[in-house]
């Protein structure tokens, strides 16, 4: 597959006279293939927006290489007409109407005026286009931002938190839009906190934590990499059931009146072992991980009872380590 975005060893530290320096990116890597809808996940302050801003030339990297549409990012201007992007909260001059905002961009980009109406219709703002942006809700501003990214009919669409502030129908519309764009061959890089959305829409994913990539690859592979093969088992006599399953070679732990069974070939083996002893199952559920649980584990943000999770403090650059989880199968396939 052709790479649309390639980032390797990206480092960015923010310096300030009056504050401690903050390392936002610490050797970050990312690879997005053509035609993918690629999810970009990370906790608050993990470096997602810094990555996108650096990729789009708004920030100057300290180290690292970046290529976008097969062009070094230093020459992003050569391919900017093929890239639509929104970064972080959409910022508009609020006294202007939505239509005026897009018309100015279209004029600056030498695009026909007709594109403005098409983009407004696509994001559902056609009937509110002549109202000043200051009366728009957050969700409407988000739609306008997406419209501005779509004006160019881009080959690559980079969206930072596009669902921010959208109502359920807006989120649904956004998801449909992503799918439609992907079907048309547009590559989409989607940064979001809505893990269920990412799981539904994205083909592949990169997870970033404290400026480093901690997982990447196709969504199914990332999830499979965290599948412990455990099954939730509920049965009347848990003690006898545990003994039987351990005798059959399984690993069993007990919690909340249920058994968590691992090390078996599948649910049928559990059912058979217990059924032969006359113990009848009331529940047997394979515990497959979802993206949220993987994300919480990888980023260390899983809530702890009575301890509200805190946003991580950016740190100085850490020495390189090998202890991140690489679930990418692309390199093996390519090799």
């Amino acid at each position, binding site marked *: 597959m052709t790479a649309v975005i390639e980032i390797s060893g990206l480092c960015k530290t923010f310096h300030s006279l009056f504050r401690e320096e903050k390392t936002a990116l610490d050797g970050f890597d990312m690879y997005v293939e053509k035609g993918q809808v690629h999810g970009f996940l990370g906790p608050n302050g993990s470096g997602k927006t810094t990555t996108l801003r650096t990729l789009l030339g708004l920030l100057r990297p300290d180290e690292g290489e970046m290529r976008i549409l097969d062009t070094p990012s230093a020459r992003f201007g050569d391919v900017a007409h093929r890239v639509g992007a929104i970064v972080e909260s959409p910022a508009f*001059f609020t006294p202007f109407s939505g239509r005026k905002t897009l018309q100015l961009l279209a004029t*600056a980009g030498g695009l026909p005026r007709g594109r403005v109406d098409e983009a407004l219709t696509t994001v559902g703002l056609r009937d509110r286009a002549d109202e000043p942006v200051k009366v728009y809700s957050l969700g409407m501003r988000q739609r306008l931002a997406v419209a501005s990214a779509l004006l160019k009919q881009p080959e690559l669409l980079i969206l930072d938190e596009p669902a921010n502030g959208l109502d359920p129908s807006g989120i649904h519309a956004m998801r449909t839009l992503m799918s439609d764009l992907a079907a048309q061959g547009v590559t989409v890089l989607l940064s979001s906190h809505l893990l269920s959305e990412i799981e539904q829409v994205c083909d592949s994913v990169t997870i970033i934590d404290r400026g480093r990539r901690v997982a990447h690859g196709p969504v199914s592979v990332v999830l499979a990499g965290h599948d412990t093969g455990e099954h939730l088992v509920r049965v009347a006599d848990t003690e006898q059931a545990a003994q039987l399953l351990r005798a059959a070679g399984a690993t069993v732990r007990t919690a909340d009146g249920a058994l968590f069974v691992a090390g078996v070939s599948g649910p049928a083996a559990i059912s058979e072992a217990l059924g032969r002893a006359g113990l009848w199952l009331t529940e047997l559920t394979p515990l497959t991980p979802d993206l949220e649980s993987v994300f919480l584990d990888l980023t260390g943000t899983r809530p702890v009872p009575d301890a509200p999770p805190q946003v991580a403090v950016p740190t100085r650059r850490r020495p390189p380590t090998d202890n991140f989880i690489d679930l990418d199968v692309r390199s093996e396939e390519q090799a």
Partner: protein
Amino acid sequence: MNLVRAEVSRLLSRRFTHVMVIGLLAVFGITAATTLASSARPGGEAWASAERTAAERRASLIEFKANCEAAFRQDREAAEDAFTGGCDAAGDPADVQAWHYLEDAFVFEQEIRGLTVFLAVYLSFFAFVIAASFIGAEMSSGGITNLLLWRPQRSSILGAKLAALTGCVALFSTLFTVLYVGVFYLIAYTSGWTGDVDAAFWVELAGLSGRGIALSAAAAACAFALATLARHTAAALGIAVGYFLVWEAGARIVFEIGGMLPYDPYFLSSYLSAFVTGDLKYWSGLDGSGDLVITRLSGGMVLAGLTAALIAAAFANFRRRDLT
């Protein structure tokens, strides 16, 4: 070119621009109406009174010159002390015209220079505020980031904004100056007196107006640069207000109290004044032995140098800045 077109459209669509233009027109309208109301076409009586005053003035000048020449013949040293400007310092009696003494009439030839200098100052203030707001709002709202995602060419973006701004300010200042001078000429023509407005007068007035327009365009460029460097409209306005309060007003008082004369060369306003109104003689020595002058040329060079330095700093900073 598309960028410049977009920026011109952005500038002309801003409500702040509309409000400032309406404010400018309102102030002009009030000034013109007041002038019109207080001016009357001179009748026979007014002319007779003016002729009498002019004749008295001519006689006074002739007498002054005669006394002066007599004093020089008697005691040259004492006369040099008494008549430091010479015997022609008070003016030539032949230049005294009756219309100089028309009391209730607006006399265009006499008034328009001062009014044009006032216009230059007012247009410069107007341009400064418009320019600071134009780029400051873009910087603080993040609008410029959106534009850079479209055209990731920072110098081109900033250059297009500057070109659109200074071009519009210069064009508006020119049109407004023509309107301003034209209305006052019309008032003088219909309800006052135009005076001797020959070709030389118009050339001089055109020069003065041109320098006023140049000052307003330079004010816009400086405000643009300051707001770009400081990233906010308010910061640019604060720098300007701070400069005038702390240095132009505060330091001037300190220099005055401390007897540190002459201090005029340390103030930007001296150079701006020299550029617009002509050479500024600011010191003749405690014994009047020699004139120190800020020339129009040096005033213009200081203005151009300051503008160029601020613009260069703004572009250099914007090219390298992280846009967070």
